[in-house]
């Protein structure tokens, strides 16, 4: 293999301008792949991060109520005209036991019981429709760290104290320390003091969320001792669907992962991944054609030398390997340069780009792109190398 390697290197060094051109071509291709993949991965991580900043990874809820027609005699004809049932606020049965069971699952990192329902917040003449969310603050903070988003006051939710969204606060004209009247169905009302105002960055949530103590919310929503959902976080967010299915089977409750809840977002992320993969694929393909065409030219240029080497007793496989190695060397060095340029582009994006979010290349992207480019080089070299190995020595020597 030594002689093949030596010949390959000497051939590449001799045609330096040609080698430099194709190296630049490969480098540009690889840098585009490194940059695009890093950008899209970074963008997606950022979107997922923001989405999950206001959401649990998995929500466990009771199943929706359905109509249950009476059982009829066999052979009897039954005509049913049904409307779908309205969904009243219901508690998860035996939620304490369910919660204990969920806490024991290996991939689950935090579990928080939540009771939530609709209501109105009233102050003076202003009335706003809100979501009343009853939580155990200590547990809930392990799912969504509201205290990081507090803009005024503190996140202290207990009997008689509440934290509300910034938009709601400005709509109602309340500040920390102000009183607020909350109304739910069935003439149940409560007057609470605003202790904290938060801004989650999602306008809708900031305009509607009212966090209350779990017990107070249960009383207000008429679900004494009950919870409507159990929120969970898991170790690997992209494993959430599998764990959600597992919870489904384990508890018989309706369990949804963040991916199912945000299916449109997931769809968008997948399309994004697909487009970045397509770009990478076609760039790699054009790089491959570049390598193949340069090597095809090289085989033609080297025809006479191939003939001499064959006359001297070089085997067909040796000639094949000379050109395969050239492909590999081009891929390897081109991709190293490309990875460096790609890295530089990422740095420049972070330094001089729009600055909305930071992207950082993953540790694996460099070795993976180098490996792929090298393999691409070898594969691209197959056709020219095959031609070189098949050259008739007599014709090759006469070739001028």
């Amino acid at each position: 293999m030594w002689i093949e390697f030596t010949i390959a290197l000497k051939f590449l060094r001799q045609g330096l301008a040609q080698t430099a051109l194709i190296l630049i071509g490969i480098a540009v291709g690889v840098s585009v792949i490194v940059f695009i993949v890093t950008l899209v991965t970074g963008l997606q991580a950022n979107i997922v991060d923001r989405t999950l900043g206001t959401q649990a990874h998995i929500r466990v809820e009771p199943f929706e109520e359905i109509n249950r027609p009476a059982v009829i005699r066999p052979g009897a004809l039954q005509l049913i005209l049904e409307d779908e049932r309205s969904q009243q606020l219901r508690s998860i049965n035996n939620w304490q036991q369910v919660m204990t069971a969920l806490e024991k699952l290996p991939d689950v990192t935090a579990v928080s019981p939540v009771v939530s329902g609709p209501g109105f917040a009233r102050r003076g003449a202003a009335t706003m429709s809100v979501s009343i969310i009853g939580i155990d603050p200590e547990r809930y903070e392990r799912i969504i760290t509201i205290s990081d988003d507090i803009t005024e006051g503190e996140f202290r939710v207990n009997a008689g104290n509440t934290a509300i969204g910034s938009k709601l606060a400005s709509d109602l004209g309340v500040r920390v320390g102000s009183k607020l009247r909350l109304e739910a169905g069935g003439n149940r009302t409560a007057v609470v003091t605003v202790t904290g105002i938060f801004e989650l960055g999602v306008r809708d949530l900031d305009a509607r969320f009212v966090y209350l103590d779990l017990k107070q919310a249960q009383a207000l929503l008429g679900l004494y001792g009950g919870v409507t959902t159990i929120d969970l976080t898991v170790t690997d967010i992209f494993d959430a669907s599998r764990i959600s299915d597992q919870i489904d089977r384990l508890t018989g409750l309706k369990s949804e992962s963040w991916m199912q809840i945000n299916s449109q977002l997931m769809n968008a992320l997948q399309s994004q991944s697909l487009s970045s993969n397509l770009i990478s694929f076609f760039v790699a393909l054009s790089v491959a054609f570049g390598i193949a065409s340069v090597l095809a030219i090289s085989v033609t240029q080297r025809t006479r030398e191939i003939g001499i080497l064959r006359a001297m007793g070089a085997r067909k496989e040796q000639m094949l390997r000379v050109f395969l190695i050239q492909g590999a060397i081009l891929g390897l060095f081109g991709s190293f340069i490309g990875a460096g340029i790609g890295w530089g582009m990422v740095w420049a994006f972070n330094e001089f780009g729009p600055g909305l979010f930071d992207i950082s290349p993953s540790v694996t992207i460099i070795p993976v792109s180098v490996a792929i480019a090298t393999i691409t080089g070898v594969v691209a070299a197959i056709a020219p190398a095959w031609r070189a190995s098949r050259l008739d020595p007599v014709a090759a020597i006469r070739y001028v």
Partner: protein
Amino acid sequence: MSDAKDPSVLKLDGLRKSYNIGLPTELEVLHGLDMTLHTHDFCALVGPSGSGKSTLLNLIGLLDQPTSGELYLLDQPTRELDDEGRTKIRRESIGFVFQFHHLIEAFSSLENVLMPLMVKGGRPTAEQSDWAMQLLDAVGLKGFERKKPSQLSGGQQQRVAIARALVTRPALLLADEPTGNLDTQTAAHIFELLRRFNREFGCAVLIVTHDPRLSETCDRTITLVDGRFTGDEWHKSPSPAPS
């Protein structure tokens, strides 16, 4: 100079070669050639252009295959050999010197001389390098080891090519108009070199040439006209060619 006791290096037995120039026309260029070449033979192959000299040389060098007949190299029949087998014989027993010296530009003179050994066994050993240096010295190119072919004159390049052809100590050296594009003086010098190696290494030499003055300095001259041997003349040895 041939001796009846010398073993045969090359033997042609009814060798024919024809080309398909568009079916069904077949053009036969060599019409059943018989010949024997022994160790120490220094033989010229002459003939007008188009007589089939290069074709014959390519067949003998196992670069091409005969249509019929047999070609023995070191008493081994070669017609049935596959590419691998023919490549092996080429690598081990045959040295080539081409008209246009055909050195590989990317390598230095020394590397070019070592190339047949490197193709066979990879990185050259110290002994092999020493041997190649000796050969370069013998062809009068001491101190030119690191020069690239483009930095040498035509005659110097041809001398590197001769050193290269001899580096594997081949049993048969084939030279296709080795002095074809050199001036008379250089040509005479190259011929002298070939002659010297024929004597010192005992390798049979077959030279294709146009130049009657050069062919006359050989021990034997075989004439090929229209694909047939029309003459087999011994200059130095009065004894007839051993059959």
